[in-house]
Each structure stands twice: as C-alpha cells, then as structure tokens.
C-alpha cells in the first residue's frame, strides 16, 4: 500500500509538471500580455520597462522556470482586472463549485442506482424501457438547455425555486439537477449492463442453485462486482462534472469557480485562467488517486502493493 501510494504520488507530480507546461504555453499563445496591461497612450519606453519588470525579455525556458518556481508556492500573479492574487480569487470560489459538483454527483447516484438496479432485475420491463429513454435524452440534451427549461418551468412558471445566485440549498437544487443528469444517464446504463454481465457468471448460478431470491442475489452478490466498472469511470465522471459546472454556473449565475473562469476569459484575465486550470488539474489528480485506492479496496484482485 505504501509503495503503491508513493508511486502514484510521484506519477501525479509528473502529470502536474506536464500540466504546468500546458498552462504556461496557454499564456504564451495569448500573445503579448503587455498590450493588455499598458494604457493606450503608453510610450515605447514604458513597454520596455514593463517587459523587463515582467521578465518577458528572458528566453522562454527561463520564463517557464520563473513561472514554475512561483507556481509551486501558489503565486500565479495578480488578476489583471481585479488586482488581487489570482490563486486567492480561484480558491475563494472553489468551495461553491465543489459543493455543486458533489451534490450533482449525489443526484446522479440517487437517479442512477435505483434505476440501474431495477432495470437489471427486470430487463425489458416498463421501468427498464423508461430508463433507456431517460438515458438517451439525458445524454443528448445540452446542459444549458436543460438548465434553461428548469428555470422556465420551476422558477418562472411555478415560482418554486430561485433561478439565480447562491445561498441555501434551494439555490443548489436546480443547478445540481442540471449538472447531474448527464452523469445519471451514463451511470444508469453502465450499472445495468454490468449487473447483467455479473448475473451471467458461475458464482451467481451457484447462488441461484442454492435457492436464493433474485433480489437477494442482485443486491448481496452482483452489486458489489458490478460496482467495479462504475468506480472505474468515476474519475472520468468527476472530470465531466467539472467541465459541466462551467456551463451550469453560467446558466444559473452561480458564483463558483466556473463562472469566474468564464468572466476571466471574457476579460482576457489570464493569471486567473492559469490559476484556475492548475487548481482544477490538482483536484482531478487527487480524485483519481482516491478512486484508484477505492478501486483496490473494492476489488481484492487489484494489487495495491505496486
């Protein structure tokens, strides 16, 4: 377990280093940042002074190392627009995004687990057909359209829940439903097919021969094995939820990090963008690490000795 974790940690550090190259390259792609920072009436001397102050007169590898050495201690520079440390701005918004993503994942599981298990218990039943339909719709409807329809029906017509902002749980319900639907559709179908696959194996046949009820077999025996593929894709689902949160937060004007990213991109506020991408990458890497460990705990065939 110790060596496994150590290996994974070294690997994660390496991936993070690679991400830092992409993030650094992102700013280089954006062209000359001095053009954005200087007032319109700036002289050529002003530009040279600013370039020197920002270290832009150095060769690229030197610039990267400067960027990296600052990034390691959490310094991504100052927001061009808000004159605040970029990392601090992102860090202040991240809890709201995590709250939304976590609740969306819960929503996804609440929809997907009962539907997936029931569909596998009674294949081709009415509920199974309904869940196929829901999965198809859930994977084809754009996140923003679902959000807009929910706002229209629940907030505008029925006036049940607020459509915008952040506060109590009532502000989270619609965004979490919006964001969780795609994952729900995906997990539901995956769970159904993996339970059906497990039900076809010898040890289930043995359990049946012993005379256990179908329901007992599915819940006590099949579910644990069927959970493995679902856990495998969880890392990818988290990635999809974080992607989707950018759109969902924009639709509901939910003040999370995703909305901050969209605003920063609109303002060409690249220090904030860089800090955001690095923070998200760290989150994704940590969550994948946790998923790997859970995977080993659930499936004893996976060796966590490294």
């Amino acid at each position, binding site marked *: 377990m110790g060596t496994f974790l150590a290996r994974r940690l070294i690997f994660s550090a390496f991936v993070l280093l690679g991400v830092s190259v992409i993030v650094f390259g992102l700013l280089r792609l954006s062209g000359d940042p001095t053009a954005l920072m200087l007032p319109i009436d700036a002289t050529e001397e002003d530009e040279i002074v600013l370039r020197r102050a920002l270290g832009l007169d150095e060769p690229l590898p030197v610039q990267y190392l400067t960027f990296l050495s600052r990034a390691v201690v959490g310094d991504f520079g100052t927001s061009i627009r808000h004159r605040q440390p970029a990392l601090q701005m992102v860090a202040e918004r991240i809890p709201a995004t995590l709250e939304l993503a976590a609740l969306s994942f819960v929503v996804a599981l609440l929809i997907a687990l009962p539907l997936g298990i029931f569909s596998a218990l009674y294949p081709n039943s009415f509920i199974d057909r309904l869940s196929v339909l829901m999965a198809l719709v859930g994977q084809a409807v754009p996140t923003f*359209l679902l959000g807009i329809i929910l706002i229209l029906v629940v907030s505008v017509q029925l006036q049940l829940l607020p459509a915008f902002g952040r506060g109590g749980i009532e502000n989270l319900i619609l965004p979490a439903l919006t964001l969780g639907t795609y994952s729900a559709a995906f997990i539901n179908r995956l769970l159904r097919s993996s339970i059906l696959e497990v039900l076809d194996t010898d040890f289930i046949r043995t359990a049946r021969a012993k005379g256990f009820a179908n329901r007992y077999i599915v819940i006590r025996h099949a579910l644990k094995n069927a959970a493995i593929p679902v856990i495998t894709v969880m890392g990818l689902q988290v990635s999809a939820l*974080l992607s989707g949160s950018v759109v969902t937060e924009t639709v509901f004007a939910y003040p999370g990090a995703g909305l901050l990213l969209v605003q920063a991109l609109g303002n060409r506020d690249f220090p904030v963008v860089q800090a955001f991408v690095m923070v998200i990458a760290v989150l994704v890497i940590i969550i994948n690490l946790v998923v790997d460990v859970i995977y080993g705990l659930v499936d004893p065939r996976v060796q966590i000795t490294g």
Partner: protein
Amino acid sequence: MAESLQQTTVPQLATPHAERRTRPRWQQNLFALLYDPVTLISLIVLTAVIVMAVAAPVLTPHDPELQSLRLRTRPPFWLMNNEPGYPLGTDALGRDILSRIIFGARVSMLVGIGAVIIQGTIGVLVGLMAGFFGGWIDTVLMRLADIQQAIPFLILAVAVAAVVDQSLLNVIIVLGVAGWVPYGRVVRAEVLSVREREFVTAARALGSSNLRLIFTHILPNVAASITVISTLTISTMILAEASLSFLGLGVPPSTPTWGGMVAAGRDYLATAAWVSIIPGIAIFLTVLSINLLGDKLRALLDPTL
C-alpha cells in the same frame, strides 16, 4: 455498386426461401435497419440537418442576419400573433429564427465532423504507434495522454478557444486537438492484441516493413472501433461547440450558431422562451439522432463492444 453487380450474377434459385438467403449480408443489415422505426426517424432527422448545412443559402426564406425593429420577438406558428412567413418566429433583433437554425446547422456539422477528423487522425496515429512499438514510445505517448486528461476536456477547450482568435477553423482545431485522448487509448489497446495475432507474425516473417504492417494489416482490424467511436464523438463535439458558443467563446458572435442562439434568448425567457428553446431542441434532436445511429452501428459492427 460492385455489390449490386455481383448480386445480378448470382444464379437465381427456384425456392423463394433460398433466394432470400443469397441476398448479401450488408443488404440484409440495411433492410433490418430501415424496418426499425427509431433508426429510420434518426436517419431522416440527420439527413435533414445535413441538407440544411449543405444547401443553407438556397433553403433560407430570409437573410439570417437581417434585423427588423418591426418584427421583434414574433412567436412561432403554434402560438398567437405569428407573422406569416416566419414559421419559427423571430428573435429579439427581429431576425428569422428558421433561417438562423438552417445556417446554424452548418457550424454544428462542420465542427462536429471537422473536429472528429482531427481527433481521429491524431488519436489513431498515436494509438497505432504506442501499441505497435511499445517501449519508450508507448510510455511517452501515454504519459502525454495522462497529462492532457488531467485538464477536463471542456475546460481545456474554452481556455484555448479564448486565447486564440475567434474563428470557425480555430474552434475545429481546438476541439480536435483537445479530444484525441479517447481515440489514442482505444486504438492502442486494440493494437496490443491485434499485433500478437498469427497473420501479423506471418506478414512480418514475409518481410513486411513496420509501416506496411501497421497500415495494411493492423489498421483495418481496428477500423470498426474507430468508426463506432467517431460516430458517437461527432455528437459530443456538436454539444461542445454549442457550449463554447453558448459561453460566447466559440465562432465569432455574428455567425448564427445554435448554442449562440440559445444564449441570446436567455434574457427573454419569461416573455419569449422560444428564442432559446427552438435552437436548443435543434441541438437535442441532432445529437439524439447521431447517438441512436451510433448505437445501431456499434451493435452491427461489434456486438462485443
């Protein structure tokens, strides 16, 4: 057409039962597909979208950019106060929604297909090289994939799309380059098993070069998987482009896009919901049709996938 020629040369047998059996496999599959109503409807929807994309200037009743103060937010035909000649109504600037939907199909299809071609090319080349050569080439390429996957797809896409100049070509390139990893991984995994099969060893023993082995012996054997992923990825890319346009980070805002139309209608949800909902439904129906056809294709090409 070679198949139909071939069929005419097949000797006609006496019993109708035997005659049916002589029908080529692909034709049987095709008939089975067309008898399935869901597949047939999906095909019709997708064909309509493609026709709209190809023949947009001929089909549009109005100039999609033409604004009119008099015709602002007119409802579609199923609501009251519809303006004749504007069956899907108009948006807040008085532009014809139907004409904008038709031109929007262009962007969606171009981005969907273009991005998939780029992703497929990068991903298949990487997967073939990593799987075939193994060793350090495999390690380097797969670590690159790991690095790229640490940044969620849409976040990478919006960040890069905002940095480069706004243009249709750039959106296609950004989505294409950001999304090669799934192809790379699937192709690599398949190549790993295909390269151990006897016919590859036989071809190698006959002196085939590596290039020949990869492209004439291994590639055809992973083609089915590539086709299936490509179909399903077109819909993902259409959704991604719609999200970019919705966020205002896609193609230039003046170009009509479905995602951009949904975004433009957001401010009028309470009074003129159709401005947002109609283009949203266009995205939904297109993506749904592609997914349904993709699933069918998967069932046909690879029952085990």
